């Protein structure tokens, strides 16, 4: 359909990806920050992580594993296959946001233990399906510290918005300016924004052409003004946007790659748009929290999900691109050329990685809280 956005080859694309260094969680930060700061960084990048819990009788790996992750992010059948193969059930815990997960992990542990890492270096002997050379270094590098691997890449994606074109009266949207302006006019009462400071504030900043990662008080003040103006026109502030979009209550929402793909597949009038001004590109990782009593099931699950055939099924379910060349070799060509998963280069050029400093910035957190309670 959108043949003007000529898909680029994977190799070219990955080469391009390396250029998006600006504002990303750099390895240096990763190395330099210890304790909580580091934990924050890691957790920010390392969602979903694995939290194996106590096994009952202890034959091999126990009978359960807890996976902290996002909604609509996995193929249910894979979990069932895992349970069948290993006897361990997979519990998917969904948190509202990175911040909530962090707060819960910290509070659930023993307080503000600065100096203790939240995740452990991975024992690669338990992950035979991990093949370092198959992974795009751009993503796997961010998961290692001092040559030790702490997190393996799950998939990456972008944050744009999804819009139901059934209601657009022939005027397509291409930018964050459209998103916010039309929310105030013909999409009034039908738009959703994330309950998540990084993207909601970041994409409001894009309206003015500021950096997605800005922590500049004056720029944040502009974003806040816009958000407050728009608030009466919003349908909801909620990151679980699929149900209302599907049942027709909402017409437009900030949206991640995979949700955009899922919605577009089921409802063709749903279009996934990356704002021309830019926005977010990100990557998620698998990690094992330190001190997990029985880690075996966690490793087993990560290893299982790293199996290229399994991972390919995951991709077809969640619709996010992965950085594993073995998996990509198994995916249908149509998917690898899908403009939602692999957007046009000029759109990608404008995207930024969410910086650790942005994620943990107290002013941005407070801004979102003010916006919600306004």
């Amino acid at each position: 359909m959108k043949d003007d956005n000529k898909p680029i080859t994977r190799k070219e694309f990955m080469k391009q990806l390396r250029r998006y260094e600006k504002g990303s969680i750099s390895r240096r930060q990763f190395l330099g920050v210890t304790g909580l700061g580091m934990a924050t960084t890691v957790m920010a990048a390392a969602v979903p992580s694995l939290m194996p819990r106590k096994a009952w009788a202890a034959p091999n790996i126990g009978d359960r594993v807890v996976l902290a992750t996002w909604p609509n992010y996995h193929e249910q059948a894979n979990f069932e296959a895992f349970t069948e193969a290993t006897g361990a059930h997979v519990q998917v815990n969904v948190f509202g946001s990175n911040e909530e997960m962090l707060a819960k992990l910290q509070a659930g542990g023993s307080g503000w233990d600065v100096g203790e890492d939240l995740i452990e270096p991975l024992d690669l002997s338990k992950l035979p399906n991990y093949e370092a050379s198959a992974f795009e270094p751009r993503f796997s590098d961010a998961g290692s510290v001092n040559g030790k691997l702490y997190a393996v890449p799950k998939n990456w994606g972008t944050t744009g918005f999804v819009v139901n074109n059934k209601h657009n009266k022939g005027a397509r949207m291409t930018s964050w300016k459209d998103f916010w302006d039309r929310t105030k006019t013909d999409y009034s009462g039908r738009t959703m924004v994330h309950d998540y400071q990084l993207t909601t504030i970041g994409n409001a900043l894009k309206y003015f052409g500021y950096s997605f990662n800005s922590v500049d008080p004056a720029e944040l003040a502009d974003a806040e003004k816009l958000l407050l103006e728009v608030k009466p026109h919003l349908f909801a502030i909620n990151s679980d946007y699929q149900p209302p979009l599907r049942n027709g209550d909402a017409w437009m929402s900030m949206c991640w790659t995979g949700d955009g793909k899922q919605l577009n597949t089921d409802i063709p009038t749903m279009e996934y748009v990356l704002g021309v001004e830019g926005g977010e590109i990100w990557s998620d990782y698998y990690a094992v929290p330190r001190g997990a009593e029985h880690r075996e099931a966690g490793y087993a699950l990560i290893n299982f999900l790293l199996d290229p055939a399994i991972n390919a099924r995951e991709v077809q379910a969640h619709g996010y691109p992965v950085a594993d060349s073995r998996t990509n070799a198994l995916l249908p060509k149509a998917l690898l050329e899908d403009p939602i998963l692999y957007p046009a280069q000029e759109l990608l050029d404008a995207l930024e990685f969410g910086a650790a400093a942005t994620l943990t910035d107290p002013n941005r957190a407070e801004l979102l809280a003010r916006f919600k309670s306004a």
Partner: protein
Amino acid sequence: MGMRIYAIVIYLFLYLPIGIIVLFSFNAGRHASDFHGFSVKWYGKVLSNPFAMDALTTSLTVAFVTALLASVFGTMAALGLQQFKGRLRVLFDAAIYIAIMIPGIVIGIATLIALVTAFGYLNPALAAAWPEWLGDAPRLKMGRVSLIAAHTMFTMALVIVIVRARIAGMDRTLIEASADLYATPMGTFRQVTLPQIFPAVLAGFLLSFTFSFDDFIIAFFVAGSETTLPIYVFSSIRRGVTPEINAIGTMVLAVSLSLLIAAQVMLRRRDRPAPTES
């Protein structure tokens, strides 16, 4: 007649969501919002899902221990308080009043930050004082115990109020008579006091159990990495409800209903005329 229609409308209002929950629990489809035909597969899924069952076990354990502690300590306190006068009594009453008045969310928050802060001091101290031959020092953290402690605090206050009201309406002459007949205090308690206050204690126990079993907001803050049934339901709701959640709701409802009917039948069988209270 008009009143009866009004009552019917209100009952419809009360049962409309219940009807929807039960209906969707038999939905064959995956998305809770569209009905794709009748199926009981979600019941099987719940029953074979160790996490739902685990959450249920946690909830039942927490609720039972909470109710037990609250009714025992609450009753003890209500009995002891009879002899308390003056400043201590005023302080105690104020504490109970505050415990009942404070919103659950504030109890949750206060318990969270107080315990996390206290653990921050206690854990290093504990680790330092721990004898090496015992292995690693245990680490205090939020979990089942903190949750039970928080629930018990609130429900104990409820039990005290309920039991105290009963004691106030109790026939004191019997106790005096018992004492006059040289019964031991323990004997008097067992033979005279307890039977009189028992309905209140039982009511307090049931109320505490129900509160603890259904509480979400305190547990949300205080339960650490433990998952109670309401927390399980809440996190499932956020990832898009499957009919599994409706099946859980329906089963909890069915179990409570059968317990209620069983209790009714038993009461009827005993056929005891209800005590007429003035």
